[in-house]
């Protein structure tokens, strides 16, 4: 049944992700995430926990699909469960006080069994169906940046694309992908 295909693929990816992360961590030149002084100046909504993609995806080079693994198998990218966070943060406590403070929040959430309520940044109206897996399949694992911007260098996630229909269409036309309405609207 579907569930097995789905979850197996997902798990496999998680493992791969870890391996890859480990491997890259040694070789590739490290990107240094900047120290954010004034968080108020950052674009995008303020999240309950100041989760920094630039540290995780940029500096530590954790591949997107490590946390958002369902994006390759499902229409929904999925939000990583708190367990995924704790997978590392049981051990990783953070280097600077500010980091420690944020990680403490994560641990508290875990111990209180109260997951953080992230504020949604990217959303499409209900009548638009955006299959993530098709796009990842076509654009590759790093295709995310096309719509979400260079998350790996962004301290706080903000909406960089309009996500309006014209914007979708432009890309589809450039890449000679169908413009058929019922591909997204049904």
């Amino acid at each position, binding site marked *: 049944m579907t569930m097995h295909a789905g979850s197996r693929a997902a798990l496999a990816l998680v493992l791969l992700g870890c391996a890859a992360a480990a491997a890259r961590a040694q070789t590739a030149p490290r990107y240094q995430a900047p120290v954010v002084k004034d968080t108020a100046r950052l674009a995008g909504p303020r999240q309950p926990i100041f989760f920094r993609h630039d540290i995780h995806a940029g500096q530590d080079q954790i591949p997107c699909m490590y946390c958002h693994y369902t994006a390759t198998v499902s229409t929904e990218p999925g939000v990583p469960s708190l367990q995924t966070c704790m997978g590392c943060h049981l051990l990783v406590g953070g280097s600077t006080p500010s980091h420690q403070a944020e990680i403490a929040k994560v641990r508290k959430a875990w111990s209180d069994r109260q997951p953080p309520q992230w504020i949604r940044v990217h959303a499409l109206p209900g009548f638009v169906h955006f299959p993530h897996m098709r796009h990842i399949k076509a654009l590759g694992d790093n295709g995310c940046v096309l719509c979400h911007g260079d998350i790996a260098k962004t301290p706080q996630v903000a909406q960089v694309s309009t996500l*309006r*229909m*014209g914007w979708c*269409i432009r890309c589809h036309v450039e890449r000679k992908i169908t413009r058929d309405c019922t591909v997204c609207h049904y």
Partner: protein
Amino acid sequence: MAQTTAPPTSGVRVTYDYVTRVIHRTLGDPGKGYFALLGVAVGLLTIGIICLLFLLRYGLGLAGYSHPVYWAVFITCFVFWVGIAHSGTLISAILFLFRSAWRTAVYRVAEAMTVFAVMTAGLFPLIHIGRQWYFYWLVPYPNERGLWPNFKSPLIWDEFAIGTYFTVSTCFLIMGLIPDIAAVRDLATGWRKKLYAITSLGWRGTNEQWRHYSRGYLYLAALATPLVLSVHSVVSWDFAMAQVPAWHETIFAPYFVAGAIYSGVAMVISLLIPIRRLFHLEEVVTIRHFENLAKLCLLTGMIVGFAYTTEYFIAWYGGPTPEHKAFYYRAFGPFWWAGWTMNVCNWFLPWILWFKKVRTNLTALFVISIFVNIGMWFERFTLIAIHLAGEPFEPFVKAGYNPTWADWGIMAGSFGWFFMWFLLFVKNFPAVSISEVKEVLPPPVRGRHA
């Protein structure tokens, strides 16, 4: 041309001056009766607006629609008002090209009627669509999505036809008004003087102005003539292009145009008779004008009758087809009363117009014209709602249909809207063309040089 004008009925000598003054008098301060009428019109309009607000809030379900009656009273009213709109341009443009002098006394009323009727008709497509707040999606404007409307859809043709018709007939009305506004300007006083001074656009009746003016008017007439024929043809194609039995007919275009003129002329008569009475225009708008209108009515009525006959004949002649079922349903189905109202009022009634006595009897004409209007409304109602209800392809979903307060309320509102504008017009602008009436009067000549 002079000899075609009406001989004065009473002792009054109809001079240029008389014409100017009698028509200027119509712009005098309105009486209680006028305000009463205006009040009624605005009242109806208010009712309509209230119903419309409910409709917008809760959805079209408040109206009487059912499955499969997806178009009903609103589209009926749309076609009805567009039809009304037709005689105006016909009288002012086509008869102008035919140089028929009698039009001069009546065309202004007809033209004003046209403009306001189109204004009314234009509202209904917007009211009847399911998501009225997206009506502008029918307009080809450049948008972020890169989407355009479907020009193959008769509804888009409609949009263009009605839009054009409204613009052109409005231009036509305004253009015809300019010299007359100038005329009343020169007699008016007070705020009216200012109003006319501006709206007459500095008209002085110099030879230069007349030279360009009459040319322009001629070409407008030349353009309006095919337009008036096209508009109702396009409206008829809303139905003829669909494959609903009893809609899908090649005769629809001429049939609808004739019907439109028919109803329009009838409406002109129903409007002109009271105006003539109230404004004491007996000398200007004479019985002969009405007789001519009646003749026009008779002619178009005969065409419409012929169209009905053809429809029924073909339906019968075609054998056991859905068409056949549809017309049987029209005549003997549960909605027979609608079908027969239309037949009696439009098909049989006009025959009495063959008699000069009737044609020259204003009371009779008035009654007949009212009946014709009713009949024409029912023609559209039968055609749209009834033929949808009597679905012949899928007998399983054949359904009844009951209009509701929302339908009637909004329809009443449309009448209020129309008469409000019309009443405001006749009190503020010359309801009869001054300069053109003068054109057909014998000019003042001394004759000693002759």
